[in-house]
């Protein structure tokens, strides 16, 4: 599993770290980072940071982890061998252990007895503006893929520390504007979703897709809306409605073939949860919206579309915030499709997709060994030219846009030259013509990556291919004349 690649050169590095922020904004915000930040109170940042840190420690369980981590950290640098960011930049400050130490040192100095005593006695080590600057830059260099946590003999989860660091920073106003603005629309805006899609537009889009599918497949495939008591209430990454029509059509086609009841709720239909990337408070509020909508529709299960972080934030945090073991069960669409295929309720034609196909594991789905084999089995069943990329599964390499970075458009140069460099090498090596990435984040990042790195490869979702290969029962086929009648009725 040797991951060594050529380090990026100076010119690439300069390009990756280019800042679009105006000098006067940087001056005013006292922040030299590549992403845009809304204006915040930049006075006395260390005090504000410590106040937020203290408040979070008081009401969370992070203290347990931090206490453990500060005692365990052996500085062995094994994490450096698996961090794709460090492997690409070769910048020692990108080693996960070093990044974590930025926050752990603040914790040690200001929140442990020993640190307080030593600090007082020597008058050193207190949190400075520079340190906050360093954290604000560093925690957003990380793609939060948590690959390093797999490689740490001491079991330190650097992803958790970056997660906490971002949470504290966001409490004092340092969070990427791209994420904050979307979340604001989702929680307080009229549309109630991160892409600001109004309900009428959603209905229009889906009707349009239904017409398309009728034409292409000669089957009346529906997107049920607001069906009460449906088995599955569907929450895709809402951007799919704008950008991933094929994925949605594939999912609808699977349900048309199986006849199971599912629905999209017009009250709330967004699986995206940027809280997972920058604030636990946002995470909690967004998760509760999913719970409320499923309750309103009297649904039985939460079904998440092809999206890694949406899946993880629902699966792991619905029980956390919405009633423990009584919370709605959460499944990912790939699990559903795999199950029905296993049961023989889904037939796929192996002669349609003949190109070389590879599968990319989204970190949030694979790192905890949640879904690894199911999509592969499916793909092998109907793609005769399936190839594997290594490392895969729980050891996969992140697309390079994880942890919300893909939504921050201004750092695209960073993502496609540094964050995704290792992934690009991996894709190139596999020689695949179609890369299956069942995650809205990964799809966007990988498309930008193959474009910027000039790799000839198409990035699609799993259900895009299933839509192509699905074989419908003859009883579902609409007769020759009928398509026009349906179209007229509508």
């Amino acid at each position: 599993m040797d991951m060594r690649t050529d380090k990026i050169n100076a010119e690439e590095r300069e390009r990756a770290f280019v800042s679009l922020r105006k000098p006067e904004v940087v001056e005013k915000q006292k922040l030299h980072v590549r992403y845009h930040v809304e204006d915040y109170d930049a006075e006395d940042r260390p005090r504000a940071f410590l106040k937020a840190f203290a408040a979070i420690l008081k009401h969370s369980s992070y203290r347990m982890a931090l206490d453990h981590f500060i005692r365990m950290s052996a500085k062995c640098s094994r994490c450096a061998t698996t961090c794709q960011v460090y492997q690409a930049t070769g910048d020692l400050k990108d080693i996960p252990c070093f990044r974590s130490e930025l926050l752990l040192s603040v914790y040690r100095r200001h929140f442990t007895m020993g640190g307080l005593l030593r600090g007082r006695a020597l008058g050193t080590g207190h949190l400075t503006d520079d340190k906050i600057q360093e954290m604000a830059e560093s925690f957003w260099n990380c793609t939060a893929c948590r690959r390093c946590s797999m490689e740490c003999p001491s079991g330190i989860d650097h992803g958790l520390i970056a997660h906490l660091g971002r949470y504290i920073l966001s409490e004092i106003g340092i969070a990427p504007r791209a994420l904050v603005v979307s979340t604001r629309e989702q929680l307080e805006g009229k549309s109630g979703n991160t892409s600001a899609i109004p309900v009428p537009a959603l209905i229009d889009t889906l009707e349009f897709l239904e017409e398309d599918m009728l034409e292409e497949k000669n089957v009346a495939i529906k997107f049920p809306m607001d069906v009460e008591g449906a088995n599955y209430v569907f929450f895709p990454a809402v951007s799919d409605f704008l950008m991933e029509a094929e994925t949605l059509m594939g999912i609808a086609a699977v349900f048309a073939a199986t006849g199971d009841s599912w629905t999209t709720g017009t009250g709330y239909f967004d699986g995206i949860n940027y809280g997972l990337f920058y604030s636990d408070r946002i995470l909690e509020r967004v998760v509760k919206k999913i719970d409320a909508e499923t309750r309103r529709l009297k649904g039985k299960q939460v079904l998440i579309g092809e999206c890694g972080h949406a899946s993880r934030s629902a699966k792991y945090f619905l029980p956390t915030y919405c009633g423990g073991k009584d919370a709605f069960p959460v499944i990912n669409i790939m699990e559903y499709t795999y199950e029905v295929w296993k049961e023989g309720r889904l037939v796929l034609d192996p002669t349609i997709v003949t190109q070389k196909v590879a599968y990319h594991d989204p970190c949030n789905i694979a790192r905890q060994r949640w879904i690894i084999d199911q999509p592969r089995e499916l793909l092998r069943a109907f793609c005769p030219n399936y190839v594997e990329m290594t490392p895969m599964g729980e050891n996969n390499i992140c697309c390079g846009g994880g942890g919300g970075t893909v939504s921050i458009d201004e750092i695209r140069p960073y993502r496609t030259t540094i964050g995704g460099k290792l992934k690009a090498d991996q894709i190139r090596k596999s020689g695949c013509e179609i890369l299956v990435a069942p995650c809205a984040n990964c799809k966007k990042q990988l498309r930008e990556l193959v474009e910027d790195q000039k790799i000839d490869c198409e990035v699609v979702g799993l259900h895009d291919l299933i839509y192509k290969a699905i074989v419908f029962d003859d009883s579902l086929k609409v007769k020759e004349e009928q398509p026009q009648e349906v179209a007229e009725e509508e």
Partner: protein
Amino acid sequence: MEALLDFARGPLFRLSFAVMALGLLRILIFDLYGAIEAYRRAGDKTMPWNLVMRRSAQWLLPINRAFKNRPAYSLISILFHIGLLLVPIFLFAHIQLWHKVIGISWLSLPKVVADYLTILTIICAVALLIGRVFNHSSSFLSRKQDYLWPLLLSMPFATGYICANVGVSPSVYQLSMMAHVLSGEIAFILIPFTKIAHCVLMPFSQLISTLAWKFPPGTDEDVATTMNKKGAPV
């Protein structure tokens, strides 16, 4: 010298051993108390026990896992730990001492094995130190204690080897015995306050990391209230 040595082997040993034992007990209790408390507060109490156990076992017995990256470093590190644990506990001379004081004894390592293991441990410690100095990323991360520990830990091994094997004059013997006892005691005292605390915390690392993602419900409201931001817009 004789009196000093008696003092070092008597009261000073008891003190340092007590500091180590109680210190480790203290952090172990804090650690597990924190874990229990976090579990009690967690909104989601389901734990992926299989995964936690598997990953814990992988690093406690890192036979497969460790060699995927940095195999030489891993091998040296594992051998170092084997010597570090086996020799002090299963050395015949040490067991005899324990037997004299608390009346309990256990199986000992054959002297030849103990000798080779001692030398191997010293070589590994030096190798780890060299690796740390010359590995780009390791040396960047290292603190003072990371360099001092291999040196400190090789001291009791080197001096112990001299005492056990080299037919030297009584005064040299006494001197190396003194260094042997004192360096061991310094290590004992430092263990609970440094990274060597991993000797008791290590088995719980995967548990703690997993549990840390099990957030308590209601933090949104609580943190907002404390921060005076209740009802504030996003």
